[in-house]
């Protein structure tokens, strides 16, 4: 019942993901961070098989870092997205990764962008996207309320509307969500949306 969704606004991109780590009927923890900071101006929100999720996103993160060390310049968001898709595609017919990814980034020349990459190596550049059962609700809410060039306040309002729908309508809805944002100043955590408090940090 993992929920991941995101959208592009005016000079920024925002992604939200639930924070439950689940094994069968047991919730291990409800403050698991599923949005990795890929580099200074990129975020990967990932959902899927927990082991694959961490393994694959760390692999991409380290390769992106290696590129920067080798070549002195960072990858563009588009290049990173295509590289990620390529890795999923190569592994697909041998040992597939069951990970769905929303890659959000900000490039100085081209502004904010969001890429939808699913586990069978589909790649789409999108303005809004979502994965999981929650997508039924978040995509519908975004279809209704999204418009191009939203401000941060408008976008957060839409994110909250989506979370509200997921909480009220999804049978095993995750209690807590984490929101991260990326803009010209970089990629960073924006806010938590908690309905069940966790005392111990991740």
């Amino acid at each position: 019942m993992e929920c991941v969704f995101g959208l592009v606004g005016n000079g920024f991109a925002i992604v939200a993901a639930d924070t439950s780590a689940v094994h069968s009927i047991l919730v291990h923890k409800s403050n698991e961070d599923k949005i990795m900071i890929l580099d200074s101006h990129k975020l990967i929100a990932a959902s899927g098989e927990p082991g694959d999720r961490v393994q694959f996103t760390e692999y991409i993160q380290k390769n992106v870092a290696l590129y920067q060390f080798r070549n002195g310049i960072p990858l563009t968001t588009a290049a990173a997205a295509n590289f990620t898709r390529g890795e999923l595609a190569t592994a697909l017919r041998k040992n597939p990764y069951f990970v769905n990814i929303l890659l959000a980034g900000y490039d100085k020349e081209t502004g904010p962008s969001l890429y939808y990459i699913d586990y069978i190596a589909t790649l789409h550049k999108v303005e809004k996207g979502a994965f999981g059962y929650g997508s039924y609700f978040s995509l519908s809410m975004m279809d209704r309320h999204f418009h191009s060039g939203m401000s941060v306040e408008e976008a957060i309002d839409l994110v909250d509307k989506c979370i509200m729908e997921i909480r009220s309508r999804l049978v095993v809805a995750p209690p807590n969500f984490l929101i991260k944002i990326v803009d010209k100043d970089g990629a960073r955590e924006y806010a938590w949306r908690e309905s069940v408090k966790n005392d111990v940090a991740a």
Partner: protein
Amino acid sequence: MSRRYDSRTTIFSPEGRLYQVEYAMEAIGNAGTAIGILSKEGVVLVGEKKVTSKLLQTSTSTEKMYKIDDHVACAVAGIMSDANILINMARVQAQRYTYAYQEPMPVEQLVQSLCDTKQGYTQFGGLRPFGVSFLFAGWDKNFGFQLFMSDPSGNYGGWKAAAIGANNQAAQSMLKQDYKDDITREEAVQLALKVLSKTMDSTSLTSDKLELAEVFVLPSGEVKYQVRSPDSLSKLLVKFGVTQAPAEAS
């Protein structure tokens, strides 16, 4: 005395030299000169052709200049058959990068990857080094127009103006004197032709003894690699006054 350290690429001499690499560079010293000059608006590559015959199909094949990708080209000096192998490797590398990242490969990364391959032939495998030097001319969005020179050792450097092949030292010192940082594309072409005419052995320069190519950006933003046709080249030679013997050149 150094004869016993000649035969294997994979050993140093007592003086700390790699003789096979140096001998490879000797081979290039006998090849036709190639000159590259970087300007604000593009890069010009000029090469002296050694094989001149009326029977050569000049319109379809070039002897000195090759396109690696839409945004990178190179001029070669040395053993042509070795050059072909490396040019193919460079082309594959460029496409491999574009396949992975859906973007053109940055010029320096392309040069670096080719030079890493060349270096391998100086350290292991027991195979001789490639007897080719390259001048790479290209454009990318990170650093704009760039000119790189690489040699059989696998070393490379970024240059504003460079020369390889026969008389390259003489050409290089002429370039050093006459090059200025804000040189325009047309001035770069003129300088390249002038320097080449002075370093070439032949008494007069005609378009069938040269090749000239440029890498520049069209108004649409697209990067273009263009080899001058023999007619266009002849006109340029007349315009810049380099068709006469060196003594009378401007």
